[in-house]
């Protein structure tokens, strides 16, 4: 079954952004960002697009589905 993989941490580190700052920008809690980075929560389309907009990237660049090996 495909698993959601995120490159959220890489993009956040590249812009020297804290989890709390990103959470405030997209209107969610810091715990939500933690779970997103760990792949423990699947974001809604709106949240995924808002996060992609913050980093100036596409949704597919940040979130992808990979086959679980």
């Amino acid at each position, binding site marked *: 079954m495909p698993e959601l993989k995120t490159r959220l941490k890489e993009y956040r580190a590249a812009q020297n952004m*804290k989890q*709390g700052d990103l959470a405030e920008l997209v*209107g*969610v*809690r810091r*715990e*939500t960002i*933690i779970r997103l980075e760990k792949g423990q929560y699947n974001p*809604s389309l709106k949240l995924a697009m808002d996060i992609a907009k913050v980093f100036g990237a596409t949704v597919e660049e940040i979130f992808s589905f990979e086959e679980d090996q």
Partner: protein
Amino acid sequence: MKQDKTIKELYEKYKKPDMTRAERQELMETIYRERYKQDPRKPITQKGQALLNLVFGAVMTVESVLELTCARLLGSNGLGILSMVSMAVILLMIFFEHKRKKEPADEMTKTFMLKAASLAAVCELTVMFVMMLAVIIVNNARGINNIVVNCDQLFDTASLLLGVYMTVRYGAYLWLDRAPACEEE
């Protein structure tokens, strides 16, 4: 002030007649977030709110169980003290909650709350079934054919069911949202 102007603009946008229900809901959440940012009070997190509600539910559950099962043992004085203690705890919680601003719920919170609510509903039905079974078994054992229910027992039963629902719902939510807050930066 700039921030007040933002909220005023949002409210003006809310009044437009051509908005859909989903758009209005989203705008209302944005307004709530803006007001949350402006509020000078200290915040209480979603977990904190859930913990307070869990304690509220637990107090209601314990009080209702004691009033339903140990009324004769406690006597009228004991019941009075029990009611006063639980009321004092609840009033303290309400006072504490009023002194803080509430962190708005995000989509993950809403998802977890829905899961917790469905679990709480199952537990609620189980408790109701067990209570009915206990009443039938005890009355049959005593050879009692008629069950007399007074308004105090009805109120205590309603409190018990509400208390169980709140305790299970918010306990389940806290268990689901158990990611450590101190992780990374």
